[in-house]
């Protein structure tokens, strides 16, 4: 109880000391607030976008691998057999893909068309769900994404069982010879998948694999979709395929993309952390300068306090409390400004060129980020205040009382 009261009294005394030198304290607090501001603002925005991108990619399946032929190479049954024969491979299915225009009333909408094994599709993209209908069996039925069935205004244009017309490239002997119309019936409509990377199911029409050859008229497979038995085996499969096919095939593991993005965002996060640390280091110098000046100005007062019975450790605590209080105020102000700044910054959004994807996400302000920032700010007060506080506590009372 006595200790608690002493602490409360010391906080009161420290507050009065700070109030006496308001301008200096406010300037120091502003200096302190920059570190937490930068840390909260940058980290929350970077983490928000990076976590979203990684989450989207990992939702594609950590054991999924896409194999695409490079120019002048045609995937064959032999390649498919080889991949299927690998002990690490659970399933491998070829697919056809193309771009198409969809006639939706007077509009023409650009969409993707994938002719792929439906079971593999739902296995690879775990969060993909059907909103209406069921998986169709014939080559003339399709599963369509939400943005295909619904207009941007949210109005549903295509219903289950409707026939849609796709304008696709007309391919003869492997070369594009103009355009042709393809009519397919809607067998199922997917639930909204959300912003997509690599694959965008919302703007895709999925067809039976045989439709690729029979309906779209494509001669060659666009790629082979491979599922490894275990995510840990993905690396081996990729390595074997790259060794065997060298430049002839492009092998993409979704987990590797997620890892690459994670490592990039971790690097960005580290750079941001280092930048914030520089601001924190400057703040330490600011706190130290303020407190040294304050202690020098109050040397006589410290002498009086020692004369009337304050111990060295009590003087140390008193001075340290002043610097910690400045840090706390600066930290809280910085965090609040950082949160506001993060919302402004995230409003700018992120455009991933190549994928034609624009994201606007809320910053990821987590309790751990706030606590981490606050602890760092308190550390600023402790480190910056410890030397002046120690000096003040060690000054002999007789010497302090003589100080002019």
């Amino acid at each position: 109880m006595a200790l608690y009261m002493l602490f409360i009294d010391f906080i009161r005394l420290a507050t009065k000391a700070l109030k006496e030198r308001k301008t200096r304290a406010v300037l120091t607090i502003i200096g302190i607030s920059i570190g937490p501001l930068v840390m909260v603002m940058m980290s929350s925005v970077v983490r928000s976008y990076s976590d979203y991108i990684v989450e989207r990619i990992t939702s594609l399946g950590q054991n999924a691998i896409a194999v695409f032929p490079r120019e002048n190479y045609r995937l064959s049954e032999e390649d498919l057999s080889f991949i299927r024969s690998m002990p690490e491979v659970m399933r491998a299915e070829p697919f056809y893909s193309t771009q198409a225009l969809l006639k939706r009333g007077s509009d023409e909408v650009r969409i993707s068309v994938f002719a792929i094994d439906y079971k593999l599709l739902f296995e690879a993209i775990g969060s993909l769900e059907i909103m209406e209908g069921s998986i169709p069996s014939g080559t003339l039925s399709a599963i369509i994404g939400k943005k295909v069935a619904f207009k941007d205004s949210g109005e549903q244009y295509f219903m289950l069982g409707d026939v849609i017309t796709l304008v696709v490239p007309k391919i003869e002997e492997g070369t594009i010879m103009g355009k042709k119309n393809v009519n397919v019936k809607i067998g199922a409509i997917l639930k909204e998948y959300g912003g997509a990377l690599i694959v965008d199911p919302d703007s895709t029409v999925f067809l039976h694999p045989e439709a690729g050859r029979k309906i779209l008229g494509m001669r060659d497979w666009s790629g082979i979709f491979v599922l490894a038995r275990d995510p840990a085996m993905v690396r081996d499969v990729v390595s074997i395929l790259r060794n065997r096919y060298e430049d002839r095939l492009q092998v993409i593991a979704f987990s590797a993309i997620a890892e690459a993005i994670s490592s990039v965002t971790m690097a960005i996060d580290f750079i941001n952390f280092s930048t914030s640390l520089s601001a924190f280091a400057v703040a330490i110098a600011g706190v130290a300068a303020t407190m040294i000046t304050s202690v020098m100005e109050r040397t006589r007062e410290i002498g009086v306090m020692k004369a009337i019975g304050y111990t060295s450790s009590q003087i140390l605590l008193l001075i340290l409390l002043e610097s910690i209080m400045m840090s706390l105020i600066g930290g809280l102000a910085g965090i609040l400004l950082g949160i506001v700044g993060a919302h402004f910054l995230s409003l700018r959004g992120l455009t991933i060129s190549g994928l034609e994807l624009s994201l606007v996400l809320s910053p990821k302000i987590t309790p751990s980020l706030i606590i981490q920032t606050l602890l760092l700010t308190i550390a600023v007060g402790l480190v910056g205040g410890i030397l002046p506080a120690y000096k003040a506590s060690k000054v002999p009372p007789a010497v302090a009382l003589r100080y002019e």
Partner: protein
Amino acid sequence: MTPSPKILVELANVSKEYRVGEIHTVALKEVSFKIYEGDLVAIMGPSGSGKTTLLNMIGLLDRPSSGKIYFEGRDISKMSDKELAYLRNAKIGFVFQTFNLVNRLTVFENIELPLIPKGLPRSVRAEMVKEALLKVGGELEWLRKKPNQLSGGQQQRVAIARAIVGNPLIILADEPTGNLDRASAKIVVETFLKLNKEGHSIIVVTHDPEIANCMEKIYVIRDGTIIGQYYADPKESLLNKISGGYVSSGH
């Protein structure tokens, strides 16, 4: 037979030397000195004679270079700085020439300062603060004021209230009237005499003979050595010269 008064502080062959670079100064030379319970003592001497150093030794603010200091019979050389701080808080009150009040704090908070390390409840402290201020002739309306809103004499009374609020055995005053006019000095001296009457030992360092003669005993110090001990002459005291009267200390 009356029992002999208790020795509160004893200095035995105490010397204090300071060394700043090549300069070596001897502030006290083998001083032996005793403060008894209820003493009313003045320490006189010219500037640089070692008065303040002696007061610092008695007040446990400094340690001697050689010799021993006993506080209530305990050798302070065997005590830690923390123990000395506790002793100062519990047993000694200090009054300074320049008052040394903290101007950002109110009068109440200034007087309360020595009570904070004791961990007393606020309500108890508030009562003690009021009692101390009234004891030195202060007014309760000063409590909310800042020290710089008071006159010099009033500020010194606040400083004395701060010194006595913890009910110390000894009050040490270093030139307490040095910054005051004669009327204010008289009030301060009268306050000391009153406190002495209530049982506090008073040690006043001064170079003013009129102040020294208000006390009972006068020690004269020169070049770090006590060169004489006299009984004060009330006729030469400030109190006598100002009003022609003298408040007896009762000793």
